[in-house]
C-alpha cells in the first residue's frame, strides 16, 4: 500500500522514504481515499479467482501504509468469504508482548472461519531503529516469540512461558484459533542463513523477499533445498514462494509504457534505503553478510536502466503471452509452488492495478494452473 504522492524532487531532498521521511508529506484525506482503493483491489482478487490475498507490515515509511496488517486483514475478512488472507507481518521482535500477536491472529482466524495464513517476520533492519529494538537481539526475540505464540495456540492454558526475552506467568489465549492445531505459518526472508535454517527445520513455506535479481532469489531457494537435504529432507514446491512484480497489458509495448514510470517511483523513491538503514549491526548475522552471494545481490534501488530490470528479472512485464512464458520459465527454474504476485506497484493508479489483476487472472493464471496445478 504505497504512498503515491511523494514530490518529484523527493530524492534530492530526502535520504530515505523510511524512518526519517517527514510525515508532513502524508495527507490523511488522500490517505482515506487510498485505503479505499487498495482494499477494493484486494477484495476484487477474490472474484477474479486468486487463492490468497496478502497484507504486510512496515513502519514509519511511505512504501507501505500498513503498520498494523491485522487491522487491514480484519477489514478484508468482512468483505470476502472464500479467499485466504495472508498476514505477512507481525514483525515479532518489535513487540514486547507477543501474546498480543497470538491473540489478534487467533481473532482473525475465528472471524474468518479459518481463512488466515499467519506470517511471522523478523522485520527489516530499519525497523530496529523505528521501534528502538536492539538489532543484536532480534533473531533471539524472533525465535522466542515464535515459540511462545505457537505454544499459546496449541497448549492448554494457562501456562508459564519462561524465556530470556519473554517471561509470562500467564499465557492463556482467548479466543483460540479456529484452525486445528493452528493457522498455517508462512515465513518471508531476505536470504539470511538464519531464516533459511529456521524454515528448513520447521518445514514452513518460505517466501523470498522481492526486489532483488531472480538469480539471487533462486540461489536462496537452492540454499534452502541444500540445507534441507543435509538433514535428509526435501522441500516440495508448495513450501517455496516467489514474490513477483507482475504487469500485464494488451501488448508488450503498452505494458512497459503503463508500468515503467511506477516501477521507477518504487525503485527510486519508495525503496530509497541506504545500507545503514538496511543492515544495523546484528540484524543479519556476520556469517550471512560474509557469504559470497551476499555481495552479488543488487537491490532494486541501485538500478538505472530498464535493461537491468529485464536482465535481472526484477519484474515480469508484457502481454499475456509474454508474461505466461516468463512466469512458466521462472516457476520451473525456481521450483516454486507459491506465486506471490505484486500487482500494485509504486504510484500505479487504481484502474491500472485492477486492469493488471484482471488480465492476469483471465489470461495468465489459468494456463499456469493447468500446467503446475
Amino acid at each position, binding site marked *: 500500500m504505497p504512498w503515491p504522492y511523494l514530490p518529484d524532487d523527493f530524492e534530492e531532498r530526502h535520504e530515505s522514504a523510511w524512518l526519517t521521511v517527514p510525515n508532513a508529506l502524508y495527507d490523511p484525506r488522500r490517505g482515506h481515499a487510498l485505503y479505499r482503493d487498495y482494499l477494493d483491489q484486494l477484495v476484487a482478487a477474490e472474484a477474479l479467482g486468486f487463492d490468497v490475498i496478502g497484507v504486510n507490515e512496515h513502519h514509519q515509511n511511505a512504501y507501505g501504509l500498513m503498520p498494523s496488517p491485522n487491522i487491514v486483514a480484519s477489514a478484508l475478512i468482512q468483505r470476502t468469504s472464500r479467499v485466504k488472507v495472508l498476514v505477512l507481518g507481525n514483525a515479532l521482535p518489535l513487540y514486547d508482548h507477543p501474546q498480543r500477536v497470538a491473540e489478534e491472529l487467533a481473532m482473525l482466524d475465528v472471524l474468518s472461519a479459518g481463512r488466515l495464513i499467519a506470517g511471522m517476520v523478523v522485520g527489516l533492519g530499519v525497523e*530496529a531503529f523505528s521501534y*528502538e529494538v536492539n*538489532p*543484536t537481539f532480534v533473531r533471539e526475540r524472533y525465535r522466542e516469540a515464535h515459540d511462545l505464540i505457537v505454544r499459546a495456540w496449541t497448549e492448554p492454558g494457562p501456562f508459564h512461558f519462561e524465556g530470556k526475552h519473554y517471561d509470562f506467568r500467564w499465557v492463556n489465549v482467548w479466543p483460540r484459533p479456529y484452525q486445528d492445531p493452528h493457522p498455517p505459518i508462512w515465513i518471508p526472508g531476505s536470504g539470511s542463513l538464519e531464516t533459511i535454517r529456521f524454515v528448513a527445520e520447521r518445514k514452513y513455506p518460505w517466501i523470498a523477499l522481492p526486489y532483488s535479481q531472480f538469480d539471487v532469489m533462486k540461489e536462496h531457494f537452492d540454499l534452502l533445498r541444500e540445507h534441507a537435504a543435509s538433514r535428509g529432507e526435501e522441500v516440495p514446491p508448495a513450501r517455496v514462494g516467489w514474490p513477483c512484480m507482475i504487469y500485464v497489458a494488451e501488448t508488450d509495448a503498452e505494458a512497459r509504457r503503463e508500468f515503467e514510470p511506477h516501477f521507477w517511483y518504487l525503485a527510486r523513491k519508495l525503496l530509497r534505503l541506504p545500507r545503514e538503514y538496511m543492515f*544495523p*549491526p546484528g540484524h543479519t548475522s*556476520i556469517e550471512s*553478510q*560474509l557469504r559470497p552471494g551476499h555481495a552479488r545481490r543488487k537491490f532494486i534501488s541501485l538500478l538505472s536502466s530498464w535493461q537491468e530490470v529485464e536482465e535481472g528479472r526484477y519484474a515480469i512485464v508484457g502481454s499475456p503471452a509474454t508474461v505466461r512464458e516468463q512466469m512458466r520459465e521462472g516457476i520451473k527454474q525456481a521450483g516454486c509452488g507459491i506465486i506471490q504476485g505484486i500487482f500494485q506497484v509504486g504510484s500505479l493508479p487504481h484502474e491500472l492495478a485492477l486492469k493488471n489483476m484482471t488480465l492476469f487472472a483471465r489470461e495468465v493464471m489459468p494456463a499456469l494452473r493447468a500446467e503446475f496445478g
Partner: protein
Amino acid sequence: MQMMSPRETTLEVGGKAIQLFSGGEGPPLLYLHGAGTFWWMPVHDRLAGRRRVYMPVHPGFGASQGLDEIESMEDLVFHTLDVMDALGLARVDVVGVSLGGWLAAELAVRHGERVQRLVLADAAGTRVPGVERADPFLAPAPRVREMLFADPTSALARALVPDTPRPDRLEVTLRGREAAARLLWNPHTQHRKLTSRLGRITAPTLVVWGAQDRVLPLAFGEAYHRGIAGSKLAVLEACGHLPQLEQPDRFADTVLAFLAG
C-alpha cells in the same frame, strides 16, 4: 619518543578468551577502550612511557570472545571486575574513553574501592534533556567522519572510517559494530539513572572532552563534571570524539599529569 612493543596476550576470564594488550613500566593503568578503537595506538605508547598500561579488549570486540554473556552495561562491569581480578589489580587508575568511559563511570559508581583515580574521555553514559546524541549506526561513512573528527578530511579520519571497509578488516569491523550495538543501542548510549548516581564517585576524577565532539557534545562532559564532586574538566581544542587518536600527545600528557598529581 621510543615506540613500545606492546605485549598481546590472551587472558582467560570466566572461561572466555580475552585479548589483552599491555606495555610499559610503572604504576598500573587500566585503559577501557571505546566502541570502535580497540587496538594498541600511539597514545598507549605515550602513556606506557610512564605507566604499566593494560588494555583488555571487551567481549565481542577484536579477538575477544563472550558477547553472548553481555546483555547490558552491568554485565560489562562484572566482566571488567573479573579482568581486574585476573590481572591482580585490586585498586587501579582507570582511563575510559567513549563506551569505555561509560563503563569506567559505572564501575566507579558501584565499586569505588577498586578505582584509585578516574579519567573519563568523551564518555557515553550521561543523559542531558534536550541534547541529542548523534547515531553513528545510521550514518554513511562521510557523515560518520564528520561526527567523529574535528577534521573529517584528515588522513586519519579516512583511514579509520573508509568509505567501504577494507576486505581484510570486514569481519572484525562487523563484529565490533555488533558488540557496540549490543551495549549502545537501547538505551541509546546512556543510562537514565547514571547522572543522579554520579555523586557516589569518590575517586579524584578528570573529565576530558574534545571541543568538537559531535557524537557526544560537551554538554555530556559537563554533566559528568557537575555530577562528580571535585572533578576537573579539560577541553581539548581541535579535537572531536576521539582524543586518543586525534590529539594523542595532548590527551596522554593531560591524563598523565592528572594521574601524577
